[in-house]
């Protein structure tokens, strides 16, 4: 019997118990088989109430980001329709990369409960503790010239910010190019890796780390000042598989818009959602620190900064430093 169909049935009737007979009729299996599957689901953390003679009722989902749980919420056409779940991985980026090399198609995602070598930009580590967050990588194979591919990182920020906003009492803001923050604290980060030559993009792997259910004491050291979770602002634990489904839905819609109509709408949405533009910032690039007012992003997604001497510098890569701007 398909466990997913049983789950969907229970989901559809969360307001009342469903009898074993009804389930066995609907799914064309014996009542013993139903009972066995219910036990199986309970082992996976589903809380299922069983009232004698009346039947089963799904009371609570487990906080699990497994394939079944995500599929249950998923409303996309392509993205996330193929899922690789692992309890613990070094990095979900590596999992997707291996699959991509074997020829996996666009939309594949890898999700893990825990990453032991979660990575940020340039090999920086990213705290991906078990249970608390979403650690996910998405495989894309966009037919765009490689020189425009960096636009995808801004697209990722827009899609992610929009999805997370629906779980929060106040909106998030994007820090150039693609950090998602709330009250200047980092809620989610994105790392994108591309394999491309001069003419063609082979793969783009978008890695997302989202802090979901961390409580106040879970961020230690300097992270306490810099990181935040959805739970801290929403006031309660949130369903990770549901958030994953929301992200993929939002991502698919922005990605389709981008492939059909180009960067225009993404750029506008990004510009409306950022708190970088108009601020006085310091950007640390590989060779220097650029200081000035962030004016706008270019059609490539690069940041234009007007320095105090009036000149304008376009920044393609760098880290905007935190901390109060000099008065």
């Amino acid at each position: 019997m398909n466990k997913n169909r049983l789950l969907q049935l229970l989901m559809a009737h969360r307001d009342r118990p469903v009898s074993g007979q009804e389930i066995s009729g609907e799914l064309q299996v014996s009542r013993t088989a139903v009972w066995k599957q219910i036990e199986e689901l309970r082992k996976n953390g589903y809380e299922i109430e069983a009232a004698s003679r009346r039947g089963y009722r799904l009371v609570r989902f487990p906080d699990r980001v497994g394939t079944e749980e995500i599929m249950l919420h998923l409303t996309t056409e392509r993205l996330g329709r193929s899922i690789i779940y692992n309890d613990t991985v070094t990095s979900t980026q590596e999992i997707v990369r291996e699959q991509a090399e074997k020829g996996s198609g666009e939309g594949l995602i890898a999700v893990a409960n825990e990453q032991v070598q979660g990575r940020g930009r340039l090999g920086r580590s990213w705290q991906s503790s078990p249970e608390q967050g979403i650690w996910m990588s998405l495989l894309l194979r966009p037919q765009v010239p490689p020189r425009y591919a960096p636009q995808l990182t801004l697209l990722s920020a827009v899609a992610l910010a929009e999805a997370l906003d629906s779980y929060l009492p106040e909106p998030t803001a994007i820090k150039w190019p693609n950090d998602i923050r709330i009250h200047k604290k980092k809620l989610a980060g994105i790392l994108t890796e591309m394999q491309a030559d001069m003419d063609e993009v082979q793969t783009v792997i978008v890695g997302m780390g989202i802090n979901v259910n961390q409580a106040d004491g879970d961020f230690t050291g300097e992270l306490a000042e810099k990181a935040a979770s959805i739970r801290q602002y929403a006031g309660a634990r949130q369903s990770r598989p549901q958030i994953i489904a929301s992200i993929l839905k939002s991502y698919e819609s922005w990605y389709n818009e981008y492939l059909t109509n180009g960067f225009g709408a993404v750029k506008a949405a990004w510009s409306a959602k950022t708190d970088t533009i108009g601020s006085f910032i310091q950007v640390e690039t590989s060779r220097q620190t650029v200081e000035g007012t962030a004016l706008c992003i270019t059609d490539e997604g690069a940041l234009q900064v007007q320095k105090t001497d009036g000149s304008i510098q376009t920044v393609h890569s760098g880290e905007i430093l935190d901390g109060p701007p000099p008065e």
Partner: protein
Amino acid sequence: MYSIEEIKELIQAVDESSVGELEIRNDMKEKVTIRKEAAMRPVAQQTAAPSPQPAAQPAPQQSETKKEETPEDSGQKETDSNYYEITSPMVGTFYRSPSPEAGAYVEKGAAIKPNTIVCIVEAMKLMNELEAEVTGEIAEILVEDGELVEYGQPLFRVIPS
């Protein structure tokens, strides 16, 4: 003081023109300089030393723009000698290693295959792992770690085998 709106308009105007650099001052003696990136200039110019473009020379600028319309679309160009050049597919920062602590992907003299990763070019936190696309030996590394590279800029010179 110039407002952000005014500056944006100016950037757009320069963007859509053939002017390479614009410098204006208002009565307060405040100066705004808008300089187009080397990326907007033809590929042939990019290897030249970065000398600042004169402010207004529309005629040569126009002819340069025309040259840009025939882009070189191959990642490995054969130079007059028997070298191949691996060029950058995008504007960004050139990194020789995956992280500051790690060793370089390739050194001078390294044997490479088409799928050997030779460097990373990064822009907007997108890390492009560049594959050699050619079999041979690295003869010369043309760019330093951390340097900003332009679209089409040669990064490595390779002796093909």
